[in-house]
């Protein structure tokens, strides 16, 4: 498959509003505020977005089948996540919320590992050090401070602004529009600013925090928040994978080189309900969802790729490319289904383990008592233990 590079077609540029390269019709246009990234593999980008969407769709299906307790869908946010992830260097560290399945995918995590938390078979699911992708954080905003501390560690490790590209490191931390309202998030902003830390805050403003529209949180755009703390804020079309990639790349490069933090607002939309447990029809009109569906991040890139002359000089992309993606999607779906069902139900002892580095005597006693109880005659009647609903 040829490595396709983005090259802008001529056209008017938007005067303000979020930075956008790729319009909903698939037209690629420059934007004076940001350089179009020079080396981008559009075909890979599209493929990953498509696979991530499939991952999401499959997880929803698994939830419906009762295999997962819950699933927070990323549908509509593929461009934001894949674009941001493509800007990462291997050594960069990522702190996600609970919705960054697309980033996890691009980081190379086995997608099955994302399911355990929602299946209730684990509280974690992967080794955060292996792919430099932190555990999902459900407490809104909490991870922003972990990112700050990690960034403080990078400074102390002397891997910021050394000039060595393979060493210099940044932190990319994700947050939602709702998370902007937590005190902890704002503390993270000010620590990062005051200490000029290599932390990029990537806020997916998907317009909703469960049922709260963005207007409940703020009357000014997300990116403006950063100025108040003294660091740059930038707003990009979150459904334009190129804009997301370009802005994140610029911010991460600055962060690695010692230029400090950036807040990126990716203006996007949560197409599905908050999670599979939510009913979005109670609080938002379907017209809004329809409007955003027309700005679909995958569709615009597909249009661009298939338009004659749309990608570089090679003309439109052919059917075999899409067929290949479809094949990979099928494989992925099967992998997820099989992997999900095969996720081990943890041993009862695992509830006790790793509470401390070494299990304290009292906890050992509790575990022994519990094991004995489970092994005792009571186990026979043990169907009803616990969940007396």
């Amino acid at each position: 498959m040829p490595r396709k590079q983005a090259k802008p077609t001529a056209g008017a540029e938007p005067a303000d509003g979020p930075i956008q390269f790729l319009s909903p019709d698939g037209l690629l246009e420059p934007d004076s505020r940001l350089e179009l990234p020079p080396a981008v593999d559009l075909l890979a980008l599209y493929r990953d977005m498509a696979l991530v969407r499939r991952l999401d769709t499959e997880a929803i299906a698994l939830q419906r089948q009762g295999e997962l307790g819950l699933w927070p869908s990323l549908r509509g946010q593929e461009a934001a996540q894949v674009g941001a992830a493509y800007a990462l260097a291997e050594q960069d560290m990522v702190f996600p919320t609970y919705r960054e399945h697309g980033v996890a995918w691009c980081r190379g995590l086995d997608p099955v590992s994302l399911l355990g938390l929602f299946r209730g078979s684990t509280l974690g699911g992967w080794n955060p050090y292996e792919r430099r992708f932190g555990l999902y954080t459900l407490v809104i905003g909490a991870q922003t401070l972990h990112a700050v501390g990690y960034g403080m560690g990078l400074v102390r490790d002397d891997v910021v602004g050394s000039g060595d590209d393979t060493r210099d490191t940044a932190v990319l931390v994700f947050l939602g529009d709702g998370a902007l309202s937590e005190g902890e998030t704002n503390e993270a902003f000010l620590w990062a600013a005051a200490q000029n830390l290599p932390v990029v805050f990537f806020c997916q403003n998907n317009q909703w925090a469960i049922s709260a529209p963005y207007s409940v949180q703020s009357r000014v755009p997300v990116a403006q928040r950063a100025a108040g703390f003294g660091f740059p804020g930038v707003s990009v079309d979150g459904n334009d994978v190129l804009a997301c990639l370009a802005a994140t790349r610029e911010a991460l490069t600055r962060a690695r080189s010692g230029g400090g933090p950036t807040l990126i607002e990716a203006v996007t939309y949560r197409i599905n309900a908050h999670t599979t447990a939510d009913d979005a029809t109670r609080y938002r009109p379907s017209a809004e969802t329809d409007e955003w569906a027309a700005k679909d991040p995958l569709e615009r890139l597909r249009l661009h790729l298939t338009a004659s002359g749309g990608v570089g000089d090679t003309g439109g992309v052919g059917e075999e490319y899409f067929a290949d993606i479809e094949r990979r999607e099928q494989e992925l779906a099967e992998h997820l289904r099989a992997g999900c069902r095969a996720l081990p139900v943890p041993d009862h002892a695992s509830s006790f383990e790793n509470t401390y580095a070494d299990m304290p005597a009292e906890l050992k006693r509790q575990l022994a008592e519990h094991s004995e109880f489970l092994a005792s005659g009571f186990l026979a009647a043990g169907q009803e233990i616990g969940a007396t609903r």
Partner: protein
Amino acid sequence: MSISMVKALNNGLRKALADDPKVLLMGEDIGRLGGVFRVTDGLQKEFGSLRVIDTPLGEAGIVGSAIGLALRGYRPVCEIQFDGFVYPAVNQIISQLAKLRHRSGGVITLPVVIRIPFGGGIGSIEHHSESPEVYFAHTAGLKVVTCSNPQDAYDMIRQAVDDDDPVIFLEPKRHYWTKGEVTDETSTPTPFDRARVLRAGTDATLIAYGPMVPAALEAADAAAEEGRSVEVIDLRSLSPLDLDTVRESVHRTGRALVAHEASLSHGFGAELAARIQQEEFHFLEAPVLRITGYDTPYPPSRLESDWLPGVDRILDALDHSLSY
């Protein structure tokens, strides 16, 4: 009328809003959505968005601004979406809400209710099944109550709103959908700071509250089949503690067991055991036993029915108690 606890709470809150224009509800997603558990369903539509307030996503802000509203004469009822999300508000709760009456020599009254769905057993992910009651019960100046059935839910939420002290109102989320008869306001409900004997017995006293009450009753039923007469007390109020009701019972039965979901160490049962052994020292025939969650974080949901104390562990403990 047989309704769910959710509906009972909803009715109680509606009544409170209708009775007193100073009553406000505030929290994340409580308006349009009606709360993630629908406890406030329809109330914003009925009372408007100035009285049923969809707040920004910040728990310190919710409780801190509720304090300010109370200083201005309002009676705010805050919803914390899940037990595990109350911690950002702990500073305002412990340092401000609990203390301002005392600090001001009684001049300031803060009739703030903080509703928190709590406890496990519904298959949730982490931070959605916590039992933080002791953090609040240990804090002087707060009242802490919990209901175990729709009638109490209806009565107690109204009593909490009427009360002039800050009240942490814990709602056992796994019983949200349990239905029960709820009579209307013509009845005179038990004061919300009194425990209630749900089942009389003579061999042992089983004390529970909120989520564990149905299991306690079930255990007493099972024990009865084996010829053991277990008295079951629903504490209802965790702070202040209705020790009289507990003592009167244990004094008679000579045996006490306490069940709760929270971790054993420094869980609610510790205080009960400490009181009972002191006050009924000469009358206890067995030590006070505790049937509780373990000293670990709440487990992933596939393990929760294993981890949570249930009927069988209660019966096991009862055997143990009776073996003394």
